[in-house]
């Protein structure tokens, strides 16, 4: 069976812990051509959208869920919201946990709203990433 509205509420197990490094923060900031000094050095904080890098394996759990029968190459990122309780910092060890909030079927596409909670030690909430993905049921061409 494919993804349906009934998959709303499905929660995935947390991904393996991810250790935020100063080197990865600097690489990410450089990729954004951003020379903000807060993104450099041992006590760097991460650019806010670095959260997507941590969320992405959690999104991939959804995309790769065999029960949903999704084709990852037919998924388009529709919208994205981040809520930050605090910035990610070099040295943080975080986990990301995905859940499906809502599924809507629109014509030949499924709109999947998902939340990824990024937490630190002792389940400290750090960031929430809410996204909507559009999945084309049939190939475009």
């Amino acid at each position, binding site marked *: 069976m494919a993804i349906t509205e009934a998959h709303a509420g499905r929660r995935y197990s947390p991904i393996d812990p991810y250790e935020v490094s100063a080197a990865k923060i600097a690489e990410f900031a450089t990729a954004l051509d*951003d020379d903000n000094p807060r993104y450099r050095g041992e006590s760097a904080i991460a650019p806010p959208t670095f959260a997507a890098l941590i969320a992405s394996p959690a999104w991939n759990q959804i995309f790769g869920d065999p029960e949903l029968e999704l084709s990852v190459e037919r998924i388009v*990122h529709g919208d*994205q919201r981040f809520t930050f309780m605090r910035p990610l910092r070099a040295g943080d060890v975080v986990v990301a946990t995905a859940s499906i909030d809502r599924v809507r079927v629109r014509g030949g596409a499924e709109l999947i709203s998902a939340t990824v909670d990024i937490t630190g030690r002792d389940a400290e909430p750090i960031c929430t990433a809410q996204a909507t993905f559009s999945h084309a049921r049939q190939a475009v061409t």
Partner: protein
Amino acid sequence: MMATVVEGLEVGTQLPPMKIRFTRERLVRYAGASTDFNPIHYSEYYAARMGLPGVIAHGMLTMGTALRVVTNWVGDPSRVISYAVRFTRPVVVPDDTDGVEVNFSGSVSAIDGSLVTVSLEAISDGQRVLGAARAEVDLGVRVPHRDHENAP
């Protein structure tokens, strides 16, 4: 630092805009940094197979770059407490030296105590590529009510 940001701030205040060029090199860098290796961001073949007019920038690259308007202005990126966008249109990046220019701008759309909402625009080839792009920033100090101060 924050005093200079707060001074004269009101709804409608424009933040310094940025003209940025996205080239294929930038897409490769962003793919590696973000670990998003979707081939539509580097391969004409896969982009065409998905019905796209060419290789397109990662939506998250556009989103992340747009936020620089806010973080350049506020200085301290940890002031950003929320950020949301819709990806309305793909940014096609040609395989040449110049790439494509994207114009980013922002203006203050709401002030509530120390919380300031900035509405962002990203325009490429005359088209908006982000929709409903808003970042909320906590300046940590209350923004004075100019309306009251200026009242006759």
